[in-house]
């Protein structure tokens, strides 16, 4: 019986999938082996999704231009910014909420957003999860 449902189902077979693909088609048996294969270039992974132009991704921090005014520390809602003794700021990405108040308030534009959004790591105090450690 040609109902609306069957028509929709057949149409769905030929349309682009609404969801994003996983990095690999089938789950590998061993993650370390898969990681090695990726490094050698023998296993191709699906690239991450496209990001919009002004995404609030991982922050970048320019230590040289920082003047140590502490305004960013005052406005950070999650206390991800810690003022150091050498008058610069340490940024913990694991606490960051990506509100961007530090980016807006900085008088010397030392903070900026990047397009990077894959920030998962095995430990929360990993080196790549702390800016200016």
């Amino acid at each position, binding site marked *: 019986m040609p109902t609306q*449902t069957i028509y929709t189902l057949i149409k769905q077979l030929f349309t682009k999938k*609404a969801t994003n693909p996983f990095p690999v088609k089938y789950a590998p048996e061993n993650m370390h082996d898969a990681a090695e294969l990726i490094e050698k270039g023998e296993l191709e992974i699906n690239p991450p999704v496209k990001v*919009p*132009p*002004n*995404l*609030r991704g991982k922050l970048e921090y320019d230590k040289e231009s920082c003047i140590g*005014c502490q*305004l960013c520390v*005052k*406005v*950070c*809602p*999650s206390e991800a910014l810690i003022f150091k003794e050498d008058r610069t700021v340490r940024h913990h990405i694991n606490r960051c*909420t*990506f*509100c*961007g*108040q530090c980016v*807006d*308030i900085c*008088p010397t534009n030392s903070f900026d*957003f990047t397009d990077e959004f894959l920030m998962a790591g095995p430990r929360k105090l990993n080196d790549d999860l702390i800016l200016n450690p």
Partner: protein
Amino acid sequence: MKEKEETTYEVPIGPIHPALKEPFLIKFKLDGEEIVDAEARPGMNHRGIEFMGMHRNPMKVIPLSERICGICSIVHQHMFTTATEHALGIEPTNRARYIRTIMCELERIHSHILWAGVAAHEIGFDTHLHFTWKIREKVMDLLEYIAGNRVNYSMWTFGGVRRDITSDMYPKVFETLKYYEDLYEKLEDIFLDDPSIKMRTQDVGVLTKEDALALCGVGPTVRASGVKKDVRIDQPYAAYGDLDLDYVIPSRYGFENKGDVFSKTLVRLKELLQSIEIIKTCVEQMPEGEMTSEPKKAALFNKLEKRSGEGIGRIEAPRGEAIHYVRLVEGRSDIDCWKIRASTYNNLATYRPMFMGEQIADIPIIAACIDPCIGCMDRAEIIDVDSGEVETYTKEELHELSVKKTERIKNRGIK
């Protein structure tokens, strides 16, 4: 009366719920399949956000306020910001008003489509759930394109907004609106014309106009009963004063103002069309100018510490009217007082008349029909651990407590 007690069963539904994804308890008294009494008991999701906010400065509270609710984060952000602007005496710029209106309406589209999916899921139409949540992605993408975040947009600041909607973004905005206009007929076909959905929604969970007025319900819940109540028209905020709006009630579209689940679905779907129109007008009428009236953030920060005052922010959230109250005190950088009243708090009272006389099978859809957000509205409850008794305060006792609290604040020496 005694006979009744012997024949009724008490059935608790929740906190892990068949209807909602949030912890919330409703106690039912059942006579066979029929509900004879219902009592809503919140209190499982109280996070003390007001208390957290009172120990931070207002700039830190903007990102905190939007985390009150995951779906209406713009709503809480807007209310907190306008309340603080009111207290400080800052006016947002005209361009910021229009951008705020556009964002509020985009969020209404996303919230109502989400609700339609949840409602379809409650009555057993999971294909519709997947369909509505799939089309919802489009507006989420647009919000991400404008604000940079998919949820918790962090767009607001005191005196304006932090991200602009420039003319090169207009094509994407219009494309998304066109997408929903094209799909609207299909949505109406699914939710308003389908005979099996009609059987599950018509004459279920009826809220009469008298009950709606007496219990102070808000938003689409009472507009479905024919109550003309909408903050966007009654007390315009942002750019709504410049727009020509009308109350969305079923009788405007040739339906009866019944107040059942069907009318609530109708009101929400028609509001989608209204939102699309509002966004189109706002984009066309958008005035040129600055994004914020306080471009120097450091100076604004000093101002926040030095001024004192109190302010109120009101908004028509997708779920109904909500209010924030903020008080600032000179010489103290933290907020002195912050009070939130979300729309679900009002609408919870409408549960009892809606549940009365209904069947057990209709509990999930009636519980979901007010679009409840427990995280927004949850309150703490005082329980005596030894006896297990729950304390309830009368109006007089609450008045006495508030007088005592005022005295305590006075004695603390804050002027």
